[in-house]
C-alpha cells in the first residue's frame, strides 16, 4: 500500500476492504483522518500504511433508534471505538456483545449501501 499517495489511498471509505492510516516521515506521528499534511508538524511528507485490523475495544454503543429508513433496517447495530495496535482510534461496527477491553479483529460488512469495518473478538 505504500505506493499509494496520501490522498488517493483506497480503504473502506472508498469501498476497498482495508483500513489505512498516515505516517509522517518528518516527525513520526500517525493520523487516521486523511489529510494532505501532518496535523502535528505540518509536514507534507506522509506515507500511507495498511493497518493489521487488530485492536482493543475502547467504547461501545448499541444503536436501537436510527434516523433514516436505510439505517433503521439494520437496528440494532453496535457502534464501537477501537484502539488499533498501530496506535490510532477508529469508529466501526462490531458484534453486539463486545465489551470494553475486548481484543478484536476487523472484517468488512455491508451497512446500507456502504462497506464498513466490523470488529469481532479475536480468535485465540
Amino acid at each position, binding site marked *: 500500500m505504500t505506493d499509494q499517495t496520501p490522498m488517493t489511498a483506497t480503504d473502506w*471509505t472508498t469501498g476497498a476492504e482495508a483500513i489505512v492510516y498516515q505516517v509522517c516521515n518528518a516527525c513520526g506521528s500517525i493520523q487516521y483522518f486523511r489529510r494532505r499534511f501532518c496535523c502535528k508538524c505540518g509536514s507534507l511528507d506522509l506515507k500511507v500504511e495498511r493497518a493489521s485490523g487488530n485492536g482493543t475495544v475502547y467504547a461501545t*454503543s448499541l444503536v436501537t433508534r436510527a434516523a433514516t429508513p436505510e439505517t433503521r433496517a439494520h437496528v440494532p447495530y453496535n457502534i464501537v471505538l477501537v484502539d488499533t495496535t498501530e496506535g490510532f482510534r477508529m469508529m466501526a461496527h462490531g458484534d453486539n456483545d463486545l465489551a470494553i477491553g475486548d481484543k478484536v479483529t476487523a472484517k468488512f460488512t455491508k451497512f446500507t449501501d456502504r462497506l464498513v469495518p466490523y470488529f469481532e473478538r479475536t480468535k485465540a
Partner: protein
Amino acid sequence: MSFITGVGLTAYGKHEGSSTLDLMSTAAQLAITDAGLKRSEIDGLLCGYSTTMPHIMLATVFAEHFGIQPAYCHAVQVGGATGMAMAMLAHHVVEAGLAKHVLVVGGENRLTGQSRDASIQALAQVGHPVYEVPLGPTIPAYYGLVASRYMHEYGVTEEDLAELAVLMRDHAITHPGAQFHEKITVADVMASKPVSSPLKLLDCCPVSDGGAAFVVSRDRTGEVGVRVLGCAQAHTHQHVTAAPALSELGAEIAIARARAATGIAISDVRYAAVYDSFTITLAMLLEDLGLAKRGEAAPLARSGHFGRDGAMPLNTHGGLLSYGHCGVGGAMAHLVETHLQMTGRAGNRQVKDASVALLHGDGGVLSSHVSMFLERVR
C-alpha cells in the same frame, strides 16, 4: 465590566405555526422589556443558527425582521455551547466599548418545523463525514460511546445516570414553561425505550420549539445587577473519534481558565447552570467542573444537594432534559433561569442564595466548552 440586564424566555415544547424568527422575536422583546430598554437602544446583536432556517447571515436577517440597525452584529456557531459563547462574546464586546447594549438571541421551531428524523439526521452531521457518519451513528450514539467509557472507568451505573433525569424532571414540574410536567422515577428511566446504549429515552433531552434571549450591557439598568465576573473556553476536538482521554476533556480546562481569570473558587459558587443534553453529559460536567467528586454526581443528586433547597441548586427550570432543547436557545434558558434566581424573581423556584453562579455550556461531543461566573451586585 458588563452586566446581564434583561432576560426573556418562551415556554418550550410545541409552538405550532411559529417560525424561527417568530420565536427569536418573542424572546428578544421579552429581554429588552425586562432590561427596561427601548428597541432603538440595542446597538449590538448576536444570534446563533437554526436547523429549520439555515442562512449564511441569520443575524442581519433577524435585525431587519426585528427592526434594529446595530453597530455590531453577526451569528455564532458552536453547537450547544453557542449560547454561552455568545454571552462571553457579548461581555467582551461591551467591555471593548464596541456596543452599550448587546442583544443575544436564539430560537427555533425545531420540533414542529421538521420531522424528528430530519432533526436527528441534521444533528448527526456533527460527526466526521467520511469516517463516522457512514456508520450510521446518532448524537445519542456519540454520547453513548462516551457514557460506556465513563461508566467503565469510574464505576458509574445506568441507575446513577437516571438520578439526574429524575432531578431535572422534579425541577421542571415547578416551572409552567417546561415541556414536561409528569413526575418520573429511576425505574421509569430504566424502563424507557433504549435509544443508544447505555442511553434510554429519558436519558436524552427532547427536541423542542422555543426561544430565549438576554441583553448584556455596559451599565446595570435595574436595582439588582448581575455582573459577568469572567469566562473562558476550551476546544479539544470536534469528533468523538479524536477526543482526548476522559481526564483531559475541555470542561476541566475551561473551568481552570475561568477560575484563574476571576479568582473565584468552586466553593464560592451558590448556584449552578450546567449543560445537560444527556444524563451522562450532566454527570461528567458536574464532576469535571468540580461541583461533584468523581463518580459522586448521582449520590449527591439523590441526597438533594442539587435541589432548590440543597447546597448547590442546579438548573432549577428543569434543564435541557425536562425544560426542553430548541437548539441555540436550549442552554440560554439556563442563563435566563440563573438571572431570575440571582435577581430574586424565580417565584416558587427561588433558592435562598444565588449570589455567585457558575454556568457551563458544551457543544459537539464534549468538543467545545464555555465556563462563566456571574456575581450579584446591589
